[in-house]
Protein backbone atom coordinates (compact mmCIF):
# COMPACT_ATOMS: atom_id res chain seq x y z
CA UNK A 1 0.00 0.00 0.00
CA UNK A 2 1.21 3.51 -0.82
CA UNK A 3 2.23 5.67 2.06
CA UNK A 4 0.24 8.92 2.12
CA UNK A 5 2.06 10.64 4.96
CA UNK A 6 5.17 9.51 6.73
CA UNK A 7 7.05 11.08 9.65
CA UNK A 8 10.58 9.93 10.45
CA UNK A 9 11.92 11.17 13.77
CA UNK A 10 9.98 14.42 13.47
CA UNK A 11 10.31 17.01 16.24
CA UNK A 12 8.87 20.48 16.55
CA UNK A 13 10.15 22.59 19.41
CA UNK A 14 8.80 26.00 20.42
CA UNK A 15 11.64 27.44 22.44
CA UNK A 16 12.17 24.95 25.23
CA UNK A 17 8.77 23.29 24.72
CA UNK A 18 8.93 20.02 22.80
CA UNK A 19 5.48 20.14 21.22
CA UNK A 20 6.32 17.15 19.01
CA UNK A 21 9.18 14.94 20.07
CA UNK A 22 10.72 12.39 17.68
CA UNK A 23 7.50 11.12 16.19
CA UNK A 24 7.31 8.36 13.58
CA UNK A 25 4.04 7.91 11.73
CA UNK A 26 3.12 6.02 8.61
CA UNK A 27 -0.33 6.75 7.25
CA UNK A 28 -1.47 4.58 4.33
CA UNK A 29 -3.38 5.91 1.34
CA UNK A 30 -7.14 5.78 1.83
CA UNK A 31 -6.83 5.30 5.56
CA UNK A 32 -8.96 7.02 8.19
CA UNK A 33 -6.28 7.88 10.72
CA UNK A 34 -7.05 9.45 14.07
CA UNK A 35 -4.59 11.32 16.28
CA UNK A 36 -5.90 11.17 19.81
CA UNK A 37 -4.58 12.84 22.92
CA UNK A 38 -5.25 15.41 25.60
CA UNK A 39 -4.79 19.09 24.79
CA UNK A 40 -1.15 20.04 24.48
CA UNK A 41 -0.09 16.52 23.56
CA UNK A 42 1.23 17.53 20.13
CA UNK A 43 -1.49 16.09 17.91
CA UNK A 44 -2.57 19.43 16.42
CA UNK A 45 1.05 20.42 15.82
CA UNK A 46 1.48 17.15 13.88
CA UNK A 47 -1.52 18.07 11.75
CA UNK A 48 -0.09 21.54 11.15
CA UNK A 49 3.21 19.95 10.15
CA UNK A 50 1.39 17.93 7.48
CA UNK A 51 -0.50 21.03 6.26
CA UNK A 52 2.75 22.99 6.13
CA UNK A 53 1.79 25.69 8.66
CA UNK A 54 4.70 24.52 10.79
CA UNK A 55 8.11 23.26 9.76
CA UNK A 56 9.79 20.47 11.73
CA UNK A 57 12.75 21.33 13.95
CA UNK A 58 14.21 17.93 13.13
CA UNK A 59 13.26 14.85 11.15
CA UNK A 60 11.73 14.18 7.75
CA UNK A 61 8.16 14.44 6.55
CA UNK A 62 7.12 13.04 3.22
CA UNK A 63 3.75 13.20 1.54
CA UNK A 64 3.14 10.55 -1.11
CA UNK A 65 6.88 9.80 -1.01
CA UNK A 66 7.83 13.41 -1.82
CA UNK A 67 9.89 15.22 0.83
CA UNK A 68 7.82 18.07 2.24
CA UNK A 69 10.74 19.99 3.71
CA UNK A 70 10.40 23.70 2.92
CA UNK A 71 7.28 23.28 0.79
CA UNK A 72 4.76 26.03 1.71
CA UNK A 73 1.09 25.16 2.41
CA UNK A 74 -0.10 26.58 -0.91
CA UNK A 75 2.02 24.08 -2.80
CA UNK A 76 0.61 21.03 -0.98
CA UNK A 77 -2.39 19.14 -2.31
CA UNK A 78 -3.55 18.73 1.23
CA UNK A 79 -6.59 20.53 2.60
CA UNK A 80 -7.65 21.29 6.12
CA UNK A 81 -10.97 21.56 7.93
CA UNK A 82 -10.17 24.04 10.71
CA UNK A 83 -11.37 23.77 14.25
CA UNK A 84 -13.06 27.19 14.02
CA UNK A 85 -13.97 26.40 10.35
CA UNK A 86 -12.22 29.63 9.21
CA UNK A 87 -14.90 30.44 6.63
CA UNK A 88 -14.33 33.78 4.92
CA UNK A 89 -16.99 36.11 6.37
CA UNK A 90 -17.01 38.49 3.40
CA UNK A 91 -17.80 35.76 0.85
CA UNK A 92 -21.04 33.84 0.50
CA UNK A 93 -21.13 30.06 0.92
CA UNK A 94 -20.73 29.34 -2.80
CA UNK A 95 -17.67 31.59 -3.13
CA UNK A 96 -16.22 30.16 0.06
CA UNK A 97 -16.47 26.64 -1.36
CA UNK A 98 -15.20 27.78 -4.78
CA UNK A 99 -12.24 29.70 -3.27
CA UNK A 100 -9.60 27.04 -3.93
CA UNK A 101 -10.82 26.59 -7.50
CA UNK A 102 -10.81 30.37 -8.05
CA UNK A 103 -7.20 30.48 -6.90
CA UNK A 104 -6.44 27.58 -9.24
CA UNK A 105 -7.77 29.74 -12.10
CA UNK A 106 -10.98 27.89 -12.92
CA UNK A 107 -13.66 29.94 -14.71
CA UNK A 108 -16.51 31.34 -12.65
CA UNK A 109 -19.14 29.11 -14.25
CA UNK A 110 -17.17 25.89 -13.81
CA UNK A 111 -16.11 26.56 -10.24
CA UNK A 112 -19.61 27.55 -9.15
CA UNK A 113 -20.92 24.34 -10.63
CA UNK A 114 -18.26 22.29 -8.83
CA UNK A 115 -19.00 24.17 -5.60
CA UNK A 116 -22.69 23.47 -5.95
CA UNK A 117 -21.93 19.76 -6.38
CA UNK A 118 -19.72 19.83 -3.29
CA UNK A 119 -22.53 21.44 -1.33
CA UNK A 120 -24.83 18.63 -2.44
CA UNK A 121 -22.26 16.12 -1.23
CA UNK A 122 -22.44 17.59 2.28
CA UNK A 123 -26.25 17.84 2.10
CA UNK A 124 -26.42 21.63 1.79
CA UNK A 125 -27.75 22.17 -1.74
CA UNK A 126 -29.09 25.64 -2.45
CA UNK A 127 -27.27 27.28 0.48
CA UNK A 128 -24.73 28.97 -1.81
CA UNK A 129 -26.23 32.45 -1.59
CA UNK A 130 -26.04 32.69 2.20
CA UNK A 131 -23.33 34.29 4.26
CA UNK A 132 -21.45 32.09 6.77
CA UNK A 133 -22.88 34.23 9.58
CA UNK A 134 -26.37 33.07 8.61
CA UNK A 135 -25.55 29.38 9.13
CA UNK A 136 -25.70 27.18 12.22
CA UNK A 137 -22.56 25.55 13.63
CA UNK A 138 -23.31 22.21 11.96
CA UNK A 139 -23.92 23.88 8.61
CA UNK A 140 -20.67 25.84 8.83
CA UNK A 141 -18.86 22.62 9.58
CA UNK A 142 -20.30 21.11 6.39
CA UNK A 143 -19.37 24.17 4.34
CA UNK A 144 -15.79 23.93 5.66
CA UNK A 145 -15.78 20.27 4.65
CA UNK A 146 -17.12 21.06 1.17
CA UNK A 147 -14.57 23.87 0.75
CA UNK A 148 -11.76 21.41 1.43
CA UNK A 149 -13.18 18.47 -0.55
CA UNK A 150 -13.98 20.46 -3.69
CA UNK A 151 -10.22 20.67 -4.37
CA UNK A 152 -9.99 16.87 -4.45
CA UNK A 153 -7.13 16.79 -1.93
CA UNK A 154 -4.86 13.75 -1.65
CA UNK A 155 -5.04 14.05 2.13
CA UNK A 156 -7.79 15.73 4.13
CA UNK A 157 -6.81 17.05 7.55
CA UNK A 158 -9.51 17.56 10.15
CA UNK A 159 -8.67 19.51 13.30
CA UNK A 160 -11.28 18.70 15.97
CA UNK A 161 -13.98 19.44 13.41
CA UNK A 162 -16.80 18.20 15.61
CA UNK A 163 -15.66 19.88 18.80
CA UNK A 164 -18.06 22.81 18.58
CA UNK A 165 -21.16 20.74 17.83
CA UNK A 166 -23.71 19.44 20.33
CA UNK A 167 -23.80 15.73 21.14
CA UNK A 168 -26.59 14.68 18.80
CA UNK A 169 -25.19 16.56 15.82
CA UNK A 170 -21.73 15.23 16.61
CA UNK A 171 -22.89 11.62 16.47
CA UNK A 172 -24.69 12.25 13.20
CA UNK A 173 -21.64 13.95 11.68
CA UNK A 174 -19.40 11.09 12.83
CA UNK A 175 -21.43 8.66 10.78
CA UNK A 176 -21.60 11.01 7.81
CA UNK A 177 -17.88 11.69 7.85
CA UNK A 178 -17.08 8.01 7.94
CA UNK A 179 -19.49 7.26 5.09
CA UNK A 180 -18.03 10.16 3.10
CA UNK A 181 -14.50 8.91 3.62
CA UNK A 182 -15.45 5.43 2.37
CA UNK A 183 -17.22 6.89 -0.64
CA UNK A 184 -14.38 9.22 -1.67
CA UNK A 185 -11.47 7.01 -0.67
CA UNK A 186 -9.43 10.06 0.40
CA UNK A 187 -6.91 9.70 3.22
CA UNK A 188 -8.40 11.37 6.31
CA UNK A 189 -6.22 12.49 9.19
CA UNK A 190 -8.41 13.38 12.10
CA UNK A 191 -7.32 15.12 15.30
CA UNK A 192 -9.48 14.75 18.40
CA UNK A 193 -9.33 14.61 22.17
CA UNK A 194 -12.52 12.54 22.30
CA UNK A 195 -11.62 8.86 22.56
CA UNK A 196 -15.15 7.75 21.58
CA UNK A 197 -14.89 9.74 18.37
CA UNK A 198 -11.48 8.32 17.51
CA UNK A 199 -12.45 4.73 18.26
CA UNK A 200 -15.76 4.82 16.38
CA UNK A 201 -14.48 6.50 13.23
CA UNK A 202 -10.87 5.63 12.59
CA UNK A 203 -9.21 2.65 10.94
CA UNK A 204 -6.16 3.27 13.10
CA UNK A 205 -5.55 5.49 16.09
CA UNK A 206 -2.32 7.09 17.29
CA UNK A 207 -2.42 8.06 20.96
CA UNK A 208 -0.35 11.12 21.83
CA UNK A 209 1.05 12.12 25.19
CA UNK A 210 3.53 14.92 25.86
CA UNK A 211 4.64 15.23 22.25
CA UNK A 212 5.21 11.52 21.72
CA UNK A 213 3.12 8.76 20.24
CA UNK A 214 2.60 6.19 22.98
CA UNK A 215 0.65 3.63 20.96
CA UNK A 216 -0.61 3.19 17.40
CA UNK A 217 -3.09 0.55 16.42
CA UNK A 218 -6.60 -0.50 15.51
CA UNK A 219 -9.33 0.86 17.81
CA UNK A 220 -9.91 -2.59 19.36
CA UNK A 221 -6.21 -2.94 20.16
CA UNK A 222 -6.06 0.50 21.73
CA UNK A 223 -9.17 -0.18 23.75
CA UNK A 224 -8.63 -3.77 24.87
CA UNK A 225 -4.86 -4.11 24.70
CA UNK A 226 -3.29 -0.88 25.92
CA UNK A 227 0.49 -1.08 25.99
CA UNK A 228 1.08 1.63 28.56
CA UNK A 229 -0.92 2.86 31.58
CA UNK A 230 -1.56 6.22 29.89
CA UNK A 231 -3.47 4.60 27.03
CA UNK A 232 -5.43 2.39 29.41
CA UNK A 233 -6.42 5.40 31.46
CA UNK A 234 -7.01 7.97 28.70
CA UNK A 235 -8.60 5.84 26.02
CA UNK A 236 -10.53 3.18 27.81
CA UNK A 237 -10.85 4.86 31.19
CA UNK A 238 -9.58 1.46 32.30
CA UNK A 239 -8.47 0.77 35.83
CA UNK A 240 -4.70 0.72 35.89
CA UNK A 241 -3.33 -1.72 38.46
CA UNK A 242 0.15 -0.91 39.74
CA UNK A 243 2.64 -3.81 40.00
CA UNK A 244 2.00 -4.50 43.71
CA UNK A 245 -1.69 -5.10 43.02
CA UNK A 246 -1.10 -7.09 39.83
CA UNK A 247 1.26 -9.35 41.76
CA UNK A 248 -1.52 -10.28 44.18
CA UNK A 249 -3.93 -11.33 41.46
CA UNK A 250 -1.62 -12.60 38.66
CA UNK A 251 1.61 -13.26 40.47
CA UNK A 252 3.52 -11.04 38.01
CA UNK A 253 5.28 -7.75 38.83
CA UNK A 254 3.80 -5.49 36.07
CA UNK A 255 1.21 -2.81 35.35
CA UNK A 256 -2.13 -4.20 34.27
CA UNK A 257 -5.44 -2.82 32.99
CA UNK A 258 -8.94 -3.94 33.86
CA UNK A 259 -11.99 -2.47 32.16
CA UNK A 260 -14.59 -1.05 34.59
CA UNK A 261 -17.36 -3.20 33.11
CA UNK A 262 -15.25 -6.34 33.79
CA UNK A 263 -14.93 -5.69 37.53
CA UNK A 264 -17.17 -7.93 39.63
CA UNK A 265 -18.10 -7.32 43.26
CA UNK A 266 -18.68 -10.16 45.68
CA UNK A 267 -17.14 -12.56 48.20
CA UNK A 268 -14.05 -13.48 46.15
CA UNK A 269 -10.95 -11.59 45.14
CA UNK A 270 -9.15 -8.61 46.63
CA UNK A 271 -10.71 -6.72 49.54
CA UNK A 272 -11.99 -3.24 48.68
CA UNK A 273 -14.11 -0.46 50.17
CA UNK A 274 -17.00 1.30 48.39
CA UNK A 275 -16.33 5.07 48.32
CA UNK A 276 -19.15 6.41 46.12
CA UNK A 277 -21.84 5.29 43.73
CA UNK A 278 -23.57 7.17 40.95
CA UNK A 279 -26.32 6.24 38.55
CA UNK A 280 -25.32 6.95 34.93
CA UNK A 281 -28.27 5.61 32.95
CA UNK A 282 -27.50 2.17 31.56
CA UNK A 283 -25.39 1.20 34.53
CA UNK A 284 -24.19 2.28 37.95
CA UNK A 285 -20.66 3.54 38.51
CA UNK A 286 -19.09 2.35 41.74
CA UNK A 287 -15.92 3.99 42.98
CA UNK A 288 -13.78 1.69 45.12
CA UNK A 289 -10.57 1.85 47.06
CA UNK A 290 -8.20 -1.04 47.36
CA UNK A 291 -4.60 -1.15 48.46
CA UNK A 292 -4.32 2.64 48.24
CA UNK A 293 -5.56 2.88 44.64
CA UNK A 294 -8.82 4.09 43.15
CA UNK A 295 -10.84 1.68 41.07
CA UNK A 296 -14.05 2.05 39.07
CA UNK A 297 -16.60 -0.69 38.53
CA UNK A 298 -19.58 -0.41 36.20
CA UNK A 299 -22.49 -2.54 37.42
CA UNK A 300 -25.15 -3.39 34.84
CA UNK A 301 -28.79 -2.58 35.49
CA UNK A 302 -30.50 -4.93 37.92
CA UNK A 303 -27.48 -5.71 40.03
CA UNK A 304 -27.58 -4.81 43.72
CA UNK A 305 -25.87 -1.50 44.49
CA UNK A 306 -23.62 -1.74 47.56
CA UNK A 307 -23.99 1.05 50.16
CA UNK A 308 -21.15 3.56 50.52
CA UNK A 309 -18.59 2.45 53.10
CA UNK A 310 -19.26 -1.27 52.68
CA UNK A 311 -16.31 -3.68 52.64
CA UNK A 312 -16.45 -5.96 49.65
CA UNK A 313 -14.18 -7.90 47.30
CA UNK A 314 -13.33 -7.27 43.65
CA UNK A 315 -12.47 -9.87 41.04
CA UNK A 316 -12.38 -10.30 37.27
CA UNK A 317 -12.16 -13.10 34.72
CA UNK A 318 -8.62 -14.00 33.77
CA UNK A 319 -9.30 -12.87 30.16
CA UNK A 320 -10.28 -9.40 31.31
CA UNK A 321 -6.99 -8.42 32.88
CA UNK A 322 -4.48 -7.08 30.39
CA UNK A 323 -0.80 -6.96 31.31
CA UNK A 324 1.24 -3.99 30.13
CA UNK A 325 4.97 -3.54 29.71
CA UNK A 326 7.11 -4.95 32.53
CA UNK A 327 7.64 -2.44 35.28
CA UNK A 328 11.18 -1.25 35.85
CA UNK A 329 11.59 -2.53 39.40
Amino acid at each position, binding site marked *: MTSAVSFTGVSRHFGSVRAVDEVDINIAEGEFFAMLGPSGSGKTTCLRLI*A*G*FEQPTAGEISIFSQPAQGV*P*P*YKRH*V*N*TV*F*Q*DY*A*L*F*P*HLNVLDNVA*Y*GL*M*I*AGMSKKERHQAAEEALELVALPGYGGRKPSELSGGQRQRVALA*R*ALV*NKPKVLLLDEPLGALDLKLREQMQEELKALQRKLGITFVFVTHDQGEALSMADRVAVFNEGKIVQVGKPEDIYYRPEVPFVADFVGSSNVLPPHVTEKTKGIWANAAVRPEAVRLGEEGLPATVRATSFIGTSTRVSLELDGIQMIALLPKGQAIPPVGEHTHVSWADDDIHLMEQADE
Partner: protein
Amino acid sequence: MSDGVLDTDRNGVLTRISDTLWRNPRLTILLLIAPPALWLGVVYLGSLFALLAQSFFSIDEFSGLIIYEFTLKTYSELFTPANFDIIVRTFLMASAVTIAAAIVSFPIAYYAARYARGKWKAIFYLGVMLPLWSSYLVKVYSWKLILAKEGILNWLFETLHLSWLLEAYLSLPIIGGNSLSVSWTGTFLVFLYVWLPFMILPIQAALERVPPSMMEASGDLGATPGQSFRHVLLPLALPGVIAGSIFTFSLTLGDYIIPQIVGSSRRFIGQAVYAYQGTAGNIPLAAAFAVVPIVIMGIYLWIAKRKGAFDAL
Protein backbone atom coordinates in the same frame (compact mmCIF):
# COMPACT_ATOMS: atom_id res chain seq x y z
CA MET B 1 -32.80 43.70 57.76
CA SER B 2 -35.47 41.40 56.46
CA ASP B 3 -35.28 37.69 57.17
CA GLY B 4 -36.66 36.83 53.75
CA VAL B 5 -34.71 35.81 50.68
CA LEU B 6 -35.77 39.00 48.89
CA ASP B 7 -34.09 42.08 50.27
CA THR B 8 -37.18 44.31 50.03
CA ASP B 9 -36.18 46.42 53.05
CA ARG B 10 -33.30 48.16 51.30
CA ASN B 11 -35.15 51.33 50.41
CA GLY B 12 -32.76 54.28 50.54
CA VAL B 13 -33.20 57.10 48.06
CA LEU B 14 -30.34 55.95 45.83
CA THR B 15 -31.59 52.37 45.93
CA ARG B 16 -35.02 53.56 44.87
CA ILE B 17 -33.56 55.50 41.97
CA SER B 18 -31.60 52.41 40.95
CA ASP B 19 -34.77 50.32 41.18
CA THR B 20 -36.69 52.74 38.98
CA LEU B 21 -33.94 52.80 36.38
CA TRP B 22 -33.63 49.00 36.49
CA ARG B 23 -37.35 48.64 35.85
CA ASN B 24 -37.30 51.18 33.00
CA PRO B 25 -34.34 50.42 30.75
CA ARG B 26 -35.65 52.84 28.12
CA LEU B 27 -35.62 55.70 30.62
CA THR B 28 -32.02 54.80 31.48
CA ILE B 29 -30.96 54.92 27.85
CA LEU B 30 -32.82 58.20 27.35
CA LEU B 31 -31.06 59.77 30.35
CA LEU B 32 -27.68 58.57 29.14
CA ILE B 33 -28.11 59.78 25.61
CA ALA B 34 -29.93 63.08 26.14
CA PRO B 35 -27.00 65.30 27.22
CA PRO B 36 -24.64 64.30 24.39
CA ALA B 37 -27.52 64.43 21.90
CA LEU B 38 -28.36 67.96 22.99
CA TRP B 39 -24.72 68.97 22.78
CA LEU B 40 -24.41 67.49 19.30
CA GLY B 41 -27.70 68.96 18.17
CA VAL B 42 -27.13 72.51 19.33
CA VAL B 43 -23.43 73.05 19.07
CA TYR B 44 -22.43 70.72 16.27
CA LEU B 45 -25.40 70.61 13.92
CA GLY B 46 -26.26 74.21 14.78
CA SER B 47 -22.91 75.51 13.64
CA LEU B 48 -23.03 73.27 10.60
CA PHE B 49 -26.39 74.69 9.53
CA ALA B 50 -25.26 78.24 10.26
CA LEU B 51 -22.35 77.55 7.94
CA LEU B 52 -24.61 76.08 5.27
CA ALA B 53 -26.96 79.04 5.51
CA GLN B 54 -24.09 81.51 5.13
CA SER B 55 -22.99 79.82 1.94
CA PHE B 56 -26.32 80.63 0.30
CA PHE B 57 -25.88 84.36 0.91
CA SER B 58 -23.62 86.61 -1.13
CA ILE B 59 -21.46 89.67 -0.64
CA ASP B 60 -22.00 93.07 -2.15
CA GLU B 61 -18.91 93.75 -4.22
CA PHE B 62 -18.86 97.50 -3.63
CA SER B 63 -19.80 97.85 0.01
CA GLY B 64 -18.41 94.49 1.12
CA LEU B 65 -21.59 93.87 3.13
CA ILE B 66 -23.36 90.54 3.25
CA ILE B 67 -26.68 90.45 1.41
CA TYR B 68 -29.03 88.12 3.32
CA GLU B 69 -30.90 86.75 0.33
CA PHE B 70 -30.91 83.22 -1.03
CA THR B 71 -28.56 82.88 -3.99
CA LEU B 72 -26.31 80.30 -5.64
CA LYS B 73 -23.98 83.06 -6.82
CA THR B 74 -21.38 82.27 -4.15
CA TYR B 75 -21.29 78.62 -5.17
CA SER B 76 -20.80 79.62 -8.81
CA GLU B 77 -17.75 81.59 -7.67
CA LEU B 78 -16.16 78.31 -6.61
CA PHE B 79 -15.93 77.42 -10.26
CA THR B 80 -13.89 80.44 -11.34
CA PRO B 81 -10.48 79.13 -12.50
CA ALA B 82 -8.57 80.48 -9.50
CA ASN B 83 -10.94 78.98 -6.94
CA PHE B 84 -11.49 75.73 -8.78
CA ASP B 85 -7.71 75.25 -8.90
CA ILE B 86 -7.65 75.42 -5.11
CA ILE B 87 -10.29 72.70 -4.87
CA VAL B 88 -8.56 70.39 -7.36
CA ARG B 89 -5.17 70.95 -5.71
CA THR B 90 -6.53 70.18 -2.24
CA PHE B 91 -8.41 67.13 -3.49
CA LEU B 92 -5.30 65.71 -5.19
CA MET B 93 -3.17 66.38 -2.13
CA ALA B 94 -5.74 64.71 0.17
CA SER B 95 -5.94 61.69 -2.16
CA ALA B 96 -2.17 61.33 -2.35
CA VAL B 97 -1.79 61.65 1.44
CA THR B 98 -4.56 59.10 2.04
CA ILE B 99 -3.19 56.51 -0.38
CA ALA B 100 0.35 56.89 0.96
CA ALA B 101 -0.87 56.73 4.55
CA ALA B 102 -2.76 53.49 3.83
CA ILE B 103 0.31 51.93 2.19
CA VAL B 104 2.65 52.97 5.02
CA SER B 105 0.18 52.06 7.78
CA PHE B 106 -0.83 48.59 6.66
CA PRO B 107 2.42 46.73 7.45
CA ILE B 108 2.78 48.51 10.82
CA ALA B 109 -0.84 47.75 11.70
CA TYR B 110 -0.44 44.14 10.55
CA TYR B 111 2.63 43.66 12.68
CA ALA B 112 0.89 45.16 15.70
CA ALA B 113 -2.26 43.11 15.24
CA ARG B 114 -0.63 39.79 14.41
CA TYR B 115 2.77 39.63 16.08
CA ALA B 116 3.15 42.28 18.79
CA ARG B 117 2.38 40.93 22.24
CA GLY B 118 2.71 42.31 25.74
CA LYS B 119 5.54 44.80 25.95
CA TRP B 120 5.82 45.22 22.18
CA LYS B 121 2.13 46.04 21.89
CA ALA B 122 2.56 48.77 24.52
CA ILE B 123 5.57 50.12 22.62
CA PHE B 124 3.53 50.10 19.43
CA TYR B 125 0.70 52.14 20.95
CA LEU B 126 3.19 54.50 22.55
CA GLY B 127 5.09 54.94 19.30
CA VAL B 128 1.94 55.64 17.32
CA MET B 129 0.39 58.00 19.86
CA LEU B 130 3.51 59.82 21.02
CA PRO B 131 3.52 62.40 18.18
CA LEU B 132 -0.06 63.32 19.13
CA TRP B 133 1.06 64.44 22.59
CA SER B 134 3.19 67.32 21.38
CA SER B 135 1.96 70.52 19.80
CA TYR B 136 1.02 70.21 16.21
CA LEU B 137 2.62 73.59 15.42
CA VAL B 138 5.95 72.55 16.90
CA LYS B 139 5.94 69.36 14.88
CA VAL B 140 5.22 71.21 11.66
CA TYR B 141 7.98 73.75 12.35
CA SER B 142 10.45 70.97 13.11
CA TRP B 143 9.60 69.46 9.77
CA LYS B 144 10.26 72.81 8.16
CA LEU B 145 13.74 72.67 9.70
CA ILE B 146 14.29 69.12 8.53
CA LEU B 147 13.23 69.95 4.98
CA ALA B 148 14.88 73.39 4.69
CA LYS B 149 17.87 74.07 2.45
CA GLU B 150 20.11 74.22 5.54
CA GLY B 151 18.25 71.28 7.05
CA ILE B 152 19.30 67.79 7.99
CA LEU B 153 17.88 66.14 4.88
CA ASN B 154 19.92 68.32 2.57
CA TRP B 155 22.98 67.65 4.71
CA LEU B 156 22.34 63.92 4.47
CA PHE B 157 22.10 64.04 0.68
CA GLU B 158 25.31 66.09 0.57
CA THR B 159 27.17 63.70 2.85
CA LEU B 160 26.14 60.78 0.69
CA HIS B 161 27.16 62.79 -2.43
CA LEU B 162 23.61 62.52 -3.68
CA SER B 163 22.81 66.23 -3.89
CA TRP B 164 22.42 65.90 -7.64
CA LEU B 165 19.55 63.46 -7.04
CA LEU B 166 17.72 65.86 -4.74
CA GLU B 167 18.30 68.73 -7.15
CA ALA B 168 17.02 66.69 -10.08
CA TYR B 169 13.93 65.88 -8.05
CA LEU B 170 13.38 69.50 -7.01
CA SER B 171 13.67 70.67 -10.61
CA LEU B 172 10.60 68.61 -11.52
CA PRO B 173 7.52 70.71 -12.24
CA ILE B 174 4.63 70.88 -9.72
CA ILE B 175 6.10 68.58 -7.04
CA GLY B 176 9.49 70.33 -7.01
CA GLY B 177 10.59 73.78 -5.82
CA ASN B 178 13.48 75.80 -4.45
CA SER B 179 13.89 73.42 -1.53
CA LEU B 180 11.81 70.63 -0.04
CA SER B 181 10.36 72.98 2.56
CA VAL B 182 8.76 75.16 -0.09
CA SER B 183 7.62 72.34 -2.36
CA TRP B 184 4.41 70.32 -2.40
CA THR B 185 6.49 67.25 -1.74
CA GLY B 186 7.29 68.87 1.62
CA THR B 187 3.62 69.60 2.29
CA PHE B 188 2.81 66.02 1.39
CA LEU B 189 5.48 64.58 3.71
CA VAL B 190 4.31 66.65 6.66
CA PHE B 191 0.64 65.79 6.08
CA LEU B 192 1.59 62.14 5.85
CA TYR B 193 3.52 62.30 9.11
CA VAL B 194 0.92 64.24 11.06
CA TRP B 195 -2.10 62.14 10.09
CA LEU B 196 -0.45 58.71 10.12
CA PRO B 197 -1.75 57.65 13.59
CA PHE B 198 -5.31 58.24 12.39
CA MET B 199 -4.75 55.64 9.67
CA ILE B 200 -2.73 53.10 11.65
CA LEU B 201 -5.13 52.71 14.57
CA PRO B 202 -8.35 51.89 12.65
CA ILE B 203 -6.50 49.45 10.36
CA GLN B 204 -4.93 47.78 13.37
CA ALA B 205 -8.35 47.51 15.04
CA ALA B 206 -9.81 45.91 11.89
CA LEU B 207 -6.91 43.46 11.52
CA GLU B 208 -7.17 42.54 15.19
CA ARG B 209 -10.59 41.08 14.42
CA VAL B 210 -9.30 38.83 11.62
CA PRO B 211 -8.51 35.41 13.12
CA PRO B 212 -5.07 34.01 12.13
CA SER B 213 -6.80 30.91 10.75
CA MET B 214 -8.21 33.05 7.89
CA MET B 215 -4.80 33.47 6.27
CA GLU B 216 -3.90 29.86 6.98
CA ALA B 217 -7.15 28.68 5.40
CA SER B 218 -6.44 30.78 2.32
CA GLY B 219 -2.92 29.38 2.00
CA ASP B 220 -4.23 25.89 2.63
CA LEU B 221 -6.58 26.33 -0.34
CA GLY B 222 -3.64 27.14 -2.60
CA ALA B 223 -3.40 30.92 -2.39
CA THR B 224 0.07 32.47 -2.31
CA PRO B 225 0.58 35.15 0.37
CA GLY B 226 -0.06 37.83 -2.27
CA GLN B 227 -3.34 36.22 -3.32
CA SER B 228 -4.36 35.78 0.32
CA PHE B 229 -3.72 39.47 0.91
CA ARG B 230 -5.83 40.48 -2.07
CA HIS B 231 -8.73 38.09 -1.62
CA VAL B 232 -8.95 37.74 2.16
CA LEU B 233 -6.90 40.16 4.25
CA LEU B 234 -7.58 43.37 2.34
CA PRO B 235 -11.35 42.84 2.03
CA LEU B 236 -11.56 42.04 5.74
CA ALA B 237 -9.43 45.06 6.69
CA LEU B 238 -11.20 47.41 4.27
CA PRO B 239 -13.65 48.89 6.81
CA GLY B 240 -10.59 49.90 8.87
CA VAL B 241 -8.81 51.35 5.84
CA ILE B 242 -11.94 53.32 4.93
CA ALA B 243 -12.31 54.56 8.50
CA GLY B 244 -8.68 55.67 8.49
CA SER B 245 -9.02 57.30 5.10
CA ILE B 246 -12.01 59.30 6.33
CA PHE B 247 -9.70 60.82 8.93
CA THR B 248 -6.67 61.45 6.71
CA PHE B 249 -8.78 62.63 3.79
CA SER B 250 -11.00 65.04 5.68
CA LEU B 251 -8.19 66.33 7.91
CA THR B 252 -6.07 67.11 4.84
CA LEU B 253 -9.03 68.71 3.05
CA GLY B 254 -9.62 71.10 5.93
CA ASP B 255 -6.13 71.89 7.21
CA TYR B 256 -4.75 75.41 6.71
CA ILE B 257 -1.65 75.49 8.89
CA ILE B 258 0.60 72.87 7.29
CA PRO B 259 0.45 74.26 3.73
CA GLN B 260 1.06 77.74 5.13
CA ILE B 261 4.26 76.74 6.93
CA VAL B 262 5.61 74.08 4.58
CA GLY B 263 4.95 74.34 0.86
CA SER B 264 4.55 76.71 -2.02
CA SER B 265 2.54 79.90 -1.76
CA ARG B 266 -0.38 78.41 -3.68
CA ARG B 267 -3.43 77.97 -1.50
CA PHE B 268 -5.37 74.97 -0.25
CA ILE B 269 -9.07 75.01 0.73
CA GLY B 270 -8.33 75.59 4.41
CA GLN B 271 -6.19 78.63 3.61
CA ALA B 272 -8.88 79.98 1.30
CA VAL B 273 -11.51 79.65 4.05
CA TYR B 274 -9.14 81.34 6.49
CA ALA B 275 -8.38 84.19 4.13
CA TYR B 276 -11.96 84.81 3.00
CA GLN B 277 -13.53 84.86 6.42
CA GLY B 278 -10.72 86.92 7.90
CA THR B 279 -9.10 89.79 6.02
CA ALA B 280 -11.44 89.63 3.02
CA GLY B 281 -14.56 89.46 5.17
CA ASN B 282 -16.26 87.29 2.55
CA ILE B 283 -17.96 84.85 4.89
CA PRO B 284 -20.36 83.45 2.26
CA LEU B 285 -17.48 82.38 0.00
CA ALA B 286 -15.58 80.98 2.99
CA ALA B 287 -18.69 78.96 3.91
CA ALA B 288 -19.08 77.72 0.34
CA PHE B 289 -15.46 76.59 0.39
CA ALA B 290 -16.05 74.85 3.71
CA VAL B 291 -18.96 72.90 2.21
CA VAL B 292 -16.70 71.40 -0.47
CA PRO B 293 -14.94 68.86 1.85
CA ILE B 294 -18.31 67.81 3.25
CA VAL B 295 -19.63 67.12 -0.25
CA ILE B 296 -16.46 65.28 -1.28
CA MET B 297 -16.56 63.08 1.85
CA GLY B 298 -20.25 62.35 1.25
CA ILE B 299 -19.56 61.23 -2.31
CA TYR B 300 -16.55 59.18 -1.14
CA LEU B 301 -18.54 57.29 1.50
CA TRP B 302 -21.41 56.71 -0.90
CA ILE B 303 -19.03 55.14 -3.46
CA ALA B 304 -17.31 53.09 -0.74
CA LYS B 305 -20.64 51.72 0.43
CA ARG B 306 -21.75 50.90 -3.13
CA LYS B 307 -18.49 49.05 -3.72
CA GLY B 308 -19.19 46.89 -0.68
CA ALA B 309 -16.42 48.28 1.53
CA PHE B 310 -18.57 47.82 4.62
CA ASP B 311 -19.81 44.29 3.84
CA ALA B 312 -17.33 42.75 6.25
CA LEU B 313 -18.61 44.86 9.17
